[in-house]
């Protein structure tokens, strides 16, 4: 079957006198999950997949080429679209690249503003991730809870920078607007309100476990193909730490496999060295280390850590300007740089080459979802088609990060 066609092919194999059929199905590019336009060519023997070959490029918007056309300042709105669910980190990556190339010192207050905006965005992104993961598994209600919480954060961020989704908040040299009066108190009040809700959310999921655990023996036969949330995620798509590093997985995908690494702590940037936070790592509490459940739990715990960071930042916010003086006709000296920011989906690498003119020579964005997509072909062998959905959701893929 051509990987770009969308016909279904049925191949007949004669296997020991019994003729079997392998189906080749095309899952996508339009499908009900919320991860964007992805396509998988699934070779399946009934419900069990032989292989799921990813096919990408349906959202390739040539953002890297546009960088060469619009210039340093003009590219900032495009960085939002690289990962629209966690747009603040992309803004930050591009701003840091420009600053690193030109050696610009960013004022302290704007660094704090950046971290505050970024951590709110991280909570939003993780909410969408766990909400849509729950929806893909079949639990529709947590998704509406997640959307409700996202709306509150949207309100806060809209007051801060005017936009709900594609923010364009950061500039090379700082941030665009200062924190409006009264915003700090509202943000602190929200963090106080939100943190216990994470436990409530967890309880919604864990309630199944507490209810089912004593009945496991009794229900074993009944539920062997009827899995509940934790059962559907435990021991599915286990990725060892070595495989994760070899395939260049990053962020919660990497930490879910047990690797203690976070760019904010290990290659610190901005004001993260002054902040006190933990880095949650997958421990195999429901199954093996590196399964879907571990990746999910890392995200839930990261939201708590973000609340901790937010509290510290909002309390310590210093005074001062929010943007350094940067020329409108910004021309950093020739050279290249490789900036890494810890986005919600992991370490996002920005390789930017400047040739001394007002337009970047090359901007390459290396994202976590690209690598996660590449490991799916290997991990999908002998999984069921429904498990493929859980795997895609647990990797927290978004199509724009893959295709740019």
């Amino acid at each position, binding site marked *: 079957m051509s990987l*770009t066609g969308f016909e279904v092919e049925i191949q007949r194999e004669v296997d020991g006198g019994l003729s079997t059929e392998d189906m080749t199905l095309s899952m996508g590019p339009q499908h009900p999950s919320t991860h964007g336009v992805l396509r998988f060519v699934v070779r399946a023997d009934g419900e069990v997949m032989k292989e799921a070959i990813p096919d990408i*490029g349906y959202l390739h918007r040539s953002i890297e080429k546009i960088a060469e056309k619009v210039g340093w300042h003009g590219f900032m709105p495009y960085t939002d679209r690289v990962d629209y669910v966690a747009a603040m980190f992309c803004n930050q990556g591009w701003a840091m690249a420009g600053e*690193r190339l030109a050696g610009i010192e960013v004022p302290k207050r704007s660094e704090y503003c950046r971290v505050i905006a970024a951590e709110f965005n991280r909570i939003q992104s993780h909410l969408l991730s766990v909400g849509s993961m729950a929806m893909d598994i079949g639990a529709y209600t947590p998704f509406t809870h997640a959307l409700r919480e996202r709306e509150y954060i949207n309100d806060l961020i809209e007051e801060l920078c005017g936009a709900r989704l594609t923010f364009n908040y950061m500039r090379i040299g700082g941030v665009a607007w200062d924190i409006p009066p009264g915003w700090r108190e509202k943000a602190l009040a929200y963090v106080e309100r939100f943190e216990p809700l994470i436990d409530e959310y967890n309880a919604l999921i864990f309630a199944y476990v507490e209810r089912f655990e004593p009945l496991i023996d009794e229900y074993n036969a009944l539920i062997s193909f009827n899995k509940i949330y934790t059962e559907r995620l435990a021991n599915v798509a286990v990725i060892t730490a070595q495989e994760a590093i070899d395939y260049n997985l990053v962020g919660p995908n990497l930490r879910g496999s047990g690797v203690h690494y976070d760019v904010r702590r290990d290659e610190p940037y901005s004001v993260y060295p002054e902040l006190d936070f933990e880095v949650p790592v997958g421990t195999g509490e429901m199954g093996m280390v590196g399964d879907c459940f571990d990746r999910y739990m890392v995200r839930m715990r990261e939201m708590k850590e973000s609340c901790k960071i937010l509290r510290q930042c909002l309390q310590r916010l210093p005074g001062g300007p929010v943007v350094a003086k940067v020329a409108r006709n910004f021309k950093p000296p020739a050279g*290249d*740089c490789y900036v890494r920011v810890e986005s919600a989906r992991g370490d996002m690498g920005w*390789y930017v080459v400047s040739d001394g003119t007002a337009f970047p020579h090359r901007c390459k964005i290396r994202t976590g979802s690209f*690598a996660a997509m590449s490991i799916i072909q290997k991990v999908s062998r002998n999984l069921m088609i429904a498990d493929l959905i859980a795997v895609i959701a647990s990797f927290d893929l978004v199509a724009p990060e893959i295709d740019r």
Partner: protein
Amino acid sequence: MAASDPAAIHAALRSHFGDAVGDLAGTRPDNTGTTVAPSAIVDVCRFLKTETGLAFDCLSNLSGVDYPKRNVIEVVYHLYSYRYRHLFVLKVDVPRDNPAVPSVAGVWHAAEWQEREVFDLLGVTFEGHPDLRRILMPEDWPGHPLRKDFVEPEEYHGISTSRESLLKT
């Protein structure tokens, strides 16, 4: 577990590979590295990955840059070690007319898709790659878009690629 500084890494490379490895260049920790001859890149990468004390177990980034003025396409490898937390940059220059580099997909699996992307957008052939085909653009797309001299096609499958401006001036 001490991170090796770039000079030490470069010295180890020089002692093993001699002239295939260029001089150490770079101004900051994130852009310090060296050039490597295309024929030696796989051995250099394998050495950097397996040598104790270097342990570059992660290919953090693989990208291609088109330099029409120098008439080369540069393939840039950013290597990172999770063990020792050091970063090193390798650069391979290939001529623009017929760019070909041996593939490092056998060293890190992360290279498989990254190399496919460089092939798709810049036209660099990676010899020995298990599955070298277009990844982001459609299979029948003409040309390699990230090249500086790329000309957009007028239409694709009957859909024109330009749009009349909505502002009537």
